[in-house]
């Protein structure tokens, strides 16, 4: 997994403010994943629009191939949810329902997460958090964590391969060691990488008492306003639906 929080600043297409991305993410959690206001038709339609938004943003960020694949998957699964789910029963319904759940509700959020990580630099993220007056005690661990996820996953999959070769796997000869022999090496190498990381971050003055400057110019532009209007519209329709103006 390359390109997480290491966006190529020169060549990333449309740039959104990190705060806009967070707003879209929260909207997706509320409406797509949480299913809020799904008894109102307008909100249901709006949720579809917001769910497709991450794919559009991905396309605007010069990743049209991935965007097309995700959009196609979303379209197929949404169609299946609308047309097939009411007709199936029993075990078929469980399996189909689960697939729809994963792709229709979870996937937009995951795509948004992937977009967010691949199009934002850590500096921009910190700048945005700073503007939102989030204290340093939260921003530093959060940015380290996001920076660290891909490393943990990469190390984990390498350790996994090594342990499979030693037959430490489900159904293998040494299955009882399956957890210990994965978590312990993971921890040891994470701690080592972590201390290198913190040395690197400290050289850049992270965690000092002085006010840090930031070279990133973040701010709201036309594209941010367009995206925010769309998400705000969804909340507006939800409220209208709740007080019974629209159905």
């Amino acid at each position, binding site marked *: 997994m390359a390109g997480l929080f290491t966006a190529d600043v020169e060549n990333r297409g449309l740039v959104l403010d990190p705060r806009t991305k967070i707003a879209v993410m929260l909207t997706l*959690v509320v409406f797509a994943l949480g299913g809020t206001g799904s008894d109102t038709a307008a909100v249901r339609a709006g949720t579809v629009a917001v769910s497709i938004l991450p794919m559009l943003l991905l396309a605007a960020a010069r990743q049209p191939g991935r965007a097309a694949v995700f959009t196609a998957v979303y379209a197929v699964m949404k169609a299946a*949810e609308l047309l097939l789910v009411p007709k199936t029963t029993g075990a078929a319904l469980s399996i189909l329902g689960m697939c729809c759940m994963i792709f229709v509700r979870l996937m937009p959020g995951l795509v948004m997460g992937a977009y967010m990580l691949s199009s934002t630099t850590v500096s921009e993220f910190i700048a945005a958090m700073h503007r939102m007056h989030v204290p340093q005690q939260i921003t530093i*661990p959060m940015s380290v*964590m996001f920076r660290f*996820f891909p490393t*943990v996953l990469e190390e984990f999959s390498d350790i996994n391969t090594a342990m499979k070769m030693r037959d430490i796997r489900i159904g293998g000869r040494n299955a009882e060691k399956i957890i210990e022999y994965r978590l312990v090496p993971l921890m040891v190498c994470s701690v080592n990488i972590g201390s290198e990381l*913190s040395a690197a971050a400290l050289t850049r003055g992270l965690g000092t008492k002085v006010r840090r400057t930031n070279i990133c110019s973040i701010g709201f532009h036309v594209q941010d306003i367009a995206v925010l209007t769309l998400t705000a519209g969804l909340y507006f329709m939800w409220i209208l639906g709740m007080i019974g103006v629209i159905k």
Partner: protein
Amino acid sequence: MKGKDLINIGIFSAIYFVIVFIVAMLGFIPIFLPLLAVLVPILGGIPFMLFLTRVKKFGMIWIMSIIMGLLMLLTGMSWPPLAVSVVSGLLAELVYKSGNYQSASRAVITNGVFSLWIAANYLPLFFAAEKYWSTRQNFGQDYIDTVTKLMPVWMCPVMSIAAFVCGIIGGLVGKALMKKHFEKAGIA
């Protein structure tokens, strides 16, 4: 708290959350859903005990707990985990502080208290069961019935107790592994 401490929080939060995430994937199978409160505290106890050896200042455990709550909010578990993690994190912090940030037995209890937020993921299931399932009709009635049968309301306090007890077990496992591996490697 210095920069290094904050970075340590970030690193261990990442490891912890990867474990939560892998176990949560198992939750799609009904029988594994209640087991979340069992598996996460035990497996998470291993990195958490190592994390505790790094904790020397007030607030580190609390911040990690708040971050877990925020991540739950971002991954669609709604707000109850965050509300609980803010409180349980502070309690865990106080427990470990009472041992001057070095008592090994307090560390085991700390892991138990810290694990309470995991049980909070189930709160909507008990107190807002109807709303919870209305947004999850996709799972199919069979899944819903199975889970409802597995989780009557009296299970609610049981889940919290289970998370706490398993947190203690996880703490002991973590402690044993630290003795076996990490101290030898010089990182504990």
